[in-house]
Structures are given as C-alpha cells and as structure tokens.
C-alpha cells in the first residue's frame, strides 16, 4: 500500500521556485496497474521518483504499508528500494562491462545473497524471460528489446511488490515496445503492482487506472 499525502517537490532554479509537484494525494493498492500520463515536463518522472524513494519531497508525507518513510535515513531507504521495488528505465541502465547474467545478478549481490543461490535464481530468471542463450552476452551484443528484458529480469529478481517503469518503451520500436508491455502486464497479473510512466496514450490507456498530470497536479484519476 502506497499513500502519498500532500507531496510537493519544488526546485530552486535561478532564484525562482519551480513547483514540479504540488500537493499530490495518491493511494495505490497492492496489485494495481497504474499509468501516469501527461505532457512533457508535467512532473511524471518527479512523481515516480518520489514513489521510488529516489528523491525526497519538499513537503508532504509518504506512507508505505502504513509506515512513514518520508524522513528515513539514506541507507534505510536504500534497503526499502532493494527489497520492495523494481526499476525499469527508458535507457535500460545496464552496466556495459558486465554480462546479461551479471547485470541481472546485481540486486542479489547488493543484498549479500551467496553466489550458489544467486546463480540458481539468475538462471531461472533468464529462462523465464527467454534469455537463456544470452547469459554471457554483454549489453552491446544485445538488441534493445533484449536489453529491456534483461533490465526487467533485474527489476524482478528480488521479487519486489512494486515495479516502477519510466517510459520503458521510449527507446524501443513499436513491436518490441509491445512485447515489453506484454511482459510487464504479465508480471502485474501475477500480483505485482505496476506503475508506469508514459506519454504514449495507446500504452497508457491499457492500464486499469490512469492518472493524468498537468503542471505538477493530478488532473484526472480514473
């Protein structure tokens, strides 16, 4: 259960205050499929980063499963990210010198899982994402779709309750983008909360709940 209470995020820019988010109230239940849409610069990414605990609000409160996580120390927020959230980025963010398998393994390494267990889990994930014959390939030897599949495998390897995707198809052609969306929706059907930022209405309309943002405010939520 994610609840944002009057979350605002202001940026200081050249002496001027810029309100990227203003008094956002948002409740997201477990297993929901939410798209966040809106024009460029409206504050979609800023909102997603708040939910992801990658950024701190200027004001407001963030409750995660009823617990106030707004002011937690860095390391504690890092632990929450590690254990509860998976991230899918527009530009994949794979580490270029590591193989596909090693990239998928990172969250397990950060959690201190032992290497035998890690290898098993990674092999299983590679199989279920159709990457089994790509395990030793480095990102520059993979197609865009394969890169995003590796990124999704990495995002789900810790079995997080929530998947956060910021324009996951923004860097892919239409057909590949469709496959990635199918994959994410399939994970949602298995019970993962899916929060996806997109400016593509065709993709955004697919979500069961659609939040529209204009100028840092929620303009519609249905």
């Amino acid at each position, binding site marked *: 259960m994610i609840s944002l209470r009057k979350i605002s995020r202001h940026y200081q820019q050249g002496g001027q205050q810029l309100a990227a988010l203003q008094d956002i109230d948002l409740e997201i239940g477990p297993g929901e499929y939410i798209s966040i849409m809106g024009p460029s610069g409206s504050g979609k990414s800023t909102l997603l980063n708040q939910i992801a605990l990658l950024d701190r609000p200027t004001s407001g409160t963030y409750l995660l499963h009823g617990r106030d996580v707004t002011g937690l120390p860095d390391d504690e927020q890092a632990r929450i*990210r590690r254990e509860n959230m998976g991230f899918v980025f527009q530009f994949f963010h794979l580490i270029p010198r590591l193989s596909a398998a090693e990239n998928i393994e990172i969250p397990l390494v950060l959690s201190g899982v032992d290497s035998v267990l890690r290898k098993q889990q990674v092999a299983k994930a590679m199989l279920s994402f159709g990457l089994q014959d790509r395990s030793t390939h480095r990102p520059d030897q993979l197609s865009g779709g394969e890169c995003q599949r590796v990124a999704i495998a990495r995002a789900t390897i810790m079995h997080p309750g929530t998947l956060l995707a910021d324009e996951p198809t923004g860097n892919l052609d239409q057909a590949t983008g469709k496959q990635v969306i199918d994959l994410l929706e399939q994970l949602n059907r298995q019970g993962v909360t899916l929060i996806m930022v997109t400016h593509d209405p065709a993709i955004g309309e697919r979500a069961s709940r659609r939040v529209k943002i204009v100028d840092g405010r929620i303009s519609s939520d249905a």
Partner: protein
Amino acid sequence: MRSTDHLRLAAGAITAHPARSILTVLGIMVGIAAVILLTAIGEGVRLYVLAEFTQFGTNLIAVFPGRNTTLGISGATISTIRPLSLDDATALERLDQVTAVVPVIQGNARIEYGKLGRRSMVLGVGAGVPEAWQMPVASGSFLPGDNPGTARTYAVLGDRMRKELFAGVNPLGKRIRVGGDRFRVIGVMAPKGQMLGFDLDDTVYLPVSRAMEIFNREGVMEIDILYESKARAAYVEQRVRELLIARHGSEDFSIVTQDQMLEVLDSIMNILTLGVAAIGSISLLVGAVGIITIMTITVTERTAEIGLLRALGARRRNILLLFLGEAVLLGGVGGIAGTGLALGIILLLQILVTGLPLEIAWNYVTTALLFSLVIGILSGIAPAIRAAALHPLEALRAE
C-alpha cells in the same frame, strides 16, 4: 554486500580497461622498485663499509696523539703535546686484559730488490699485527717482538709487494732495500685486499723503531690496543686513559674505540639509506598521482553506474568501498609487481656482477609493500568519497 563481491566487482572494473590499468600499475611498480633498489644499494654500501671497518677485529681501541673531539688525527696542536712513544706502547702492554699492542707509523718509501724497485707504503708496526688486525701470515713468520732499540732489520711483505718484486722467486731470506736501509725478508702476509682505498697488500712491514728512523719521526702515529673479547670496552678505555695521563701529565691524546667508530659510521650509513629511500619515494608519489587521476576519471565515467547501483539499493558505504577497493588493488598489484621486479633485478645483478655492494633491505621492502596499499587508499579516498556522495538521481541522469 559481501567483501568477496566487493573485490570481484573492483577487479572486474580494473580489467575492463586493461591498457590504462597496466599503465597505472606500472607507475606504482616503478616507484616501489626504485625504493627497494635504492635502499638495497644503501644497505649494501652500509654493510660493506661496516665490514671494511670490522675486518681488523672489533676488540680494538686506537690511541692517537693530540686532543680532539672528532675522529682522526689532529694536526694543529701536534708540536705542543708529547708524542706517543714506544715506551707508551710498552707500558700499555702491561695493562690488565690487554692482549696485544701495536704501535703504528706509516710512510712512503722506495723499495728495491736487485734491479727491481717501486715506491709504496711502509708500515712500521709491532709484533702484534697478525693478532690485532686479524691478518694471517702466508709464509715465513711476522716481525719478532724485539726491543725497540735493538730491533733486527727484518721485513715482512704484503702479497702484492711479493708478486711485484719476487715474481717466481721465494722471497724468504732475500735482502731488500727500504729508503736506503737493508732489510731481510722473513715473511709474507696473506692477501687482505683494499681498505678504504689503501692497498694493504702493496705494503712492506718493518719494525716500528726502524721505520721511525727512516722517516725521522719522534713518536708513533697511532697505538692499536687489542683487548680480551670478554673485557668491556669502556673499562679498557678508562684504564688506557688513566695510564697515559699518568705518563704524559695531561690528556694530550685521543682514544677511539671500535664501537664509537662503528656507531658513527652506522648512523651515517643509515641516513644515507633513508636519503635514497626518500629519493625513490618521489617516483612513488608520481605513481600515486597516477592512481588519483585514473580513479577521478573512472568515477566520472561511471556516474550512471553509481546512480544505478544506488537506485538498486546499494548503500553509500558500498559505493565507497567499491572504488576504494579499485584504488587499493591498483596500488597493491603495483607494489607486488614492483617488489618482484626489484628482487629480480637484485638477484640478477648479484649473479652477473660479483662483489656488488647490494643487500636487500627487508624492512624497506615490507614498508614499501604496505606503503603501496596505503598509497592506494590515500589516492582512492577522495574520488571514492565523491562517488559515494553522488545523489542517485543526478547520477542516473548522467547518461
């Protein structure tokens, strides 16, 4: 996160850029090798010089005429003081715990045998030389302990002197001329080699009283006193001082013990080694700058990676240790490689060139190795702190 994973990731990042990692390691390697090589030379020279000084034995006290504070003979006041006489030497011989006394004067003279002749060093000495200076006689015997006034005109040759004057001829019993006087050869010394530039083999040993006549001198230049090895240097020194003050009426002489000489020498030589180590450290500093440079570049290049790791739940400490680990690995590998290189060069030199004053200074080797790790930490700390302080969002945006 496990420390083995920290290390593995750090090593992976280093091997991902083989060329520049090798160059960085090379910088530290050269620095460490320089320190070890230079200190090996310093240590070698130190041991060489100390060996030069102890080859005459260590239970030795030397008395010089003239009062002075530093080592050696004071020339300035020589006329106003009583010279050290042969009687002084005889009196010292009677001291408790003294085993041999050698009065010494030294000069140059022409030495002739038949038609052959050469100018060379002449040492006027007492009978105690083989024992006090630890110089064995190769054939014949050394000068006998005759009374100074009636010393027989015997001579003993150094090894080189024998070769030059008596090639293929047995010198024993032959007559040579030294500064016009005739002497009979009764012995030949075993080869001893050079001692701080003096060729002790290119020498003729004469009874000290005869040598004083040849060089027209009143007193001796030095009296060497050999004491029992179980005796204390300070005790013997004190007895020598008391005796000579009683005979001279004042302390118009200087006493130098072997211990004092060695102490001064040793400290000078240690400073020398420290000095060359400092010179070597300059190249180590250059190596450290190399690590700082490469680590700074690495952190900048991998900003996006840092942001990703932080987003995926890495703590600041993980990031810090990751980059610090890379720097320490670079330094450590450089240190080990440098040590290997230096030890290899030293061993090779010792095999190829014999008699080289080269001695591995193990304390400096260990220090250099530890230092390479410290250099890694010191050069890596600033870039690593910068990496750990990056805000995950700023870092993610860096692509």
